[in-house]
């Protein structure tokens, strides 16, 4: 069985369809990652980027009166 190339694996990982498709496709992708340390490294980096996005999004807290101002604005009737 011919395994997908590194590029195929990297594409699947970054597009986010690594875990999708037929069982055969998933098996071949997984097998490749299992035997290829470079792709394992890439996979870890993509997972790091995903976690990083969470860090970026959590970095800022809303102003304390943000909700109050919003509610005030929205419930005001002309």
């Amino acid at each position, binding site marked *: 069985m011919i395994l997908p190339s590194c590029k195929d694996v990297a594409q699947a990982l970054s597009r986010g369809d690594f875990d999708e498709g037929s069982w055969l496709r998933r098996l071949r992708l997984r097998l490749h990652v299992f035997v290829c340390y470079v792709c394992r490294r890439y996979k870890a980096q993509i997972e790091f980027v995903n976690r990083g996005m969470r860090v970026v*999004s959590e970095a800022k807290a809303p102003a304390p009166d943000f909700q109050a101002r*919003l509610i005030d604005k929205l*419930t005001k009737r002309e």
Partner: protein
Amino acid sequence: MAPPVSEEIQALKKRDNEAVRRLVADHSGALLAGAMSMGFCQADAEELVQDTFVAFLEGVERFEGRSSVKTFLFGILYNKGLTLRRRQRKEEASEKIEEIFDARFGALGVWTTFPRGPEHEALNAELKAWLEDCAGTLTSEQRAALHLKEVEGEETSAICRILEVTANNLGVLLFRARNKMRECLEGKSKGGEA
């Protein structure tokens, strides 16, 4: 316990103050995070969220409950966000990241330029600044896609509805977003070593 969705919508249609208050309490945090993740400054993001609620309340008559309130709100948010972004700056039509990605592989699709090992990964306070810098290299749409996927944990179908893209387009957005971030972070860790 919160009243069921249909009753909540009815209350919102009547502009019931309590219902509006619950709507804001439930969704303003996630929407603000979503707006900030598109790279807007705090003031712009807050205004965007406010506009989103206003548009939602104006259009609540048309809300049929086919998508969740959250998906509906995010759809409005990103629509408005992208319009605002387009006004603020013209986005480049072509993306260099595809070339950079391709250049890493040889003819057989084997890695030629290896991704760098974990020993190069910085684990200090600089990291957060790097992440923010690198997120800044993404377009608003790419950031939105990655945010919805990784932070909100939305399903592919919901993200496609929110951003009004096909599943394939979403794949391209995520591909570009993740690879741009990865290349940028790698570049930074390389630079720090010199």
